[in-house]
C-alpha cells in the first residue's frame, strides 16, 4: 500500500482546498516561519485518528478548524482525506481487493469528528486499526514533530517501550 495524495480544506491555516502529492523518495517542504508547514504535517497525523489535541498543539480538537483571519471569517468544518494505492493488494482486510482507498476525517465545530473509508462511515477505532496494520498511525515513531526529535532521549525507559511495540 502506498500513500499517494493528501487533501485538506478548512484545516488550521489551510482554509482553501489544498492537495499534496506524496511521491516516492525525498520530498522537501519549505517556507518562511509561520506559513503552515507543520500544520500540513499535522493534517496527516490528525487524519490517522489522532485523539490528542495536545499533539495538534491545541487545547481542544475544535482548534484545528480554520479560526479566521483579519479578512476571512472562521469556518465550522474541516476535512482531510488521504488517497492510498493498493496495486499490490496487500491492504488490511476487508480492503484487500480494491485498487484505491480513500480515508476521510471530518470535524464540525461542537459536534466532533466522523471517519469514512471508501465512502463508508467507520469508527475512530477502525481507522486507528487500519493504520496500525500499515505500520503507521497517529503515534507512529516515524512521524517526528518539530522540536521533538530528541524527545525519545529524554523519555523514561518505560515510555520508550511503545517504540518497540510499534516495530514488532
Amino acid at each position, binding site marked *: 500500500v502506498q500513500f499517494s495524495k493528501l487533501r485538506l480544506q478548512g484545516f488550521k491555516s489551510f482554509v482553501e482546498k489544498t492537495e499534496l502529492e506524496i511521491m516516492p523518495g525525498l520530498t522537501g517542504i519549505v517556507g518562511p516561519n509561520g*506559513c503552515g508547514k507543520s500544520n500540513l504535517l499535522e493534517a496527516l497525523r490528525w487524519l490517522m485518528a489522532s485523539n490528542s489535541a495536545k499533539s495538534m498543539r491545541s487545547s481542544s480538537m475544535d482548534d484545528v478548524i480554520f479560526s479566521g483571519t483579519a479578512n476571512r471569517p472562521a469556518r465550522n468544518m474541516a476535512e482531510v482525506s488521504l488517497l492510498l494505492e493498493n496495486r499490490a493488494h496487500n491492504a488490511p482486510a476487508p480492503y484487500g481487493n480494491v485498487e484505491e482507498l480513500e480515508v476521510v476525517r471530518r470535524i464540525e465545530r461542537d459536534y466532533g469528528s466522523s471517519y469514512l473509508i471508501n465512502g463508508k462511515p467507520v469508527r475512530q477505532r477502525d481507522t486507528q486499526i487500519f493504520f496500525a496494520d500499515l505500520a503507521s498511525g497517529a503515534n507512529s515513531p516515524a512521524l517526528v514533530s518539530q522540536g521533538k526529535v530528541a524527545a525519545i532521549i529524554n523519555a523514561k525507559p518505560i515510555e520508550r517501550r511503545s517504540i518497540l511495540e510499534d516495530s*514488532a
Partner: protein
Amino acid sequence: AKERLTAAFDQVNTYFQSLFTRLFGGGKAHLEMIEGDDPSVAGLEIYAQPPGKNLTSLSLLSGGEQALTALSLILAMFLTNPAPVCVLDEVDAPLDDANVDRICDVLREIAEKSQTRFLVVTHHRLTMARMDRLFGVTMAERGVSQLVSVNMEQLDMFAEAA
C-alpha cells in the same frame, strides 16, 4: 507476542548500532531492556558513546549529539518495520553542516532501499539541495496557507516574497 518483541528488539538494536557509528563516524551505542517496577513490562534503555569520549548519561550529550542518537533509533525502528511514510519536521535544526550531510546520505539510502516516502520540512539550504523535489508553503494572503511546487533556483525569490 513475547518472541516477536524480542526478535524486534534484536533487529532494532542491530540497526541502531550500525546507524550510530555511521552518523558519528565511530563510537558505539546499544539498547537494553531493563526491568521496571513491574517485571512483565520492561523499559528500553539507550547507551550512547560518541567516538573518543567516555560513556556518559544521555543528558550530557550535546543538542546535536542527542538529535543524531535519536534519529539513529527512529530510523532503526523504521528499517525493522518499514512504514509507508516518514515525516521529519526540522530535525536538522540542531545539526552542523557536516552532520546535515550525513543525515541526508542516510535518508537517501533508506529511501532508495525501501518503498518509504519521506516528507522533510527544513530551513537548511543543504537539505533542500538533497531533496528529489520541493514544495513551498506560502501565505501570500496573510493567515491563509497555500502550497506551490518550487525548484532550487526559485528558492531565493520564494523566500523574499514571504
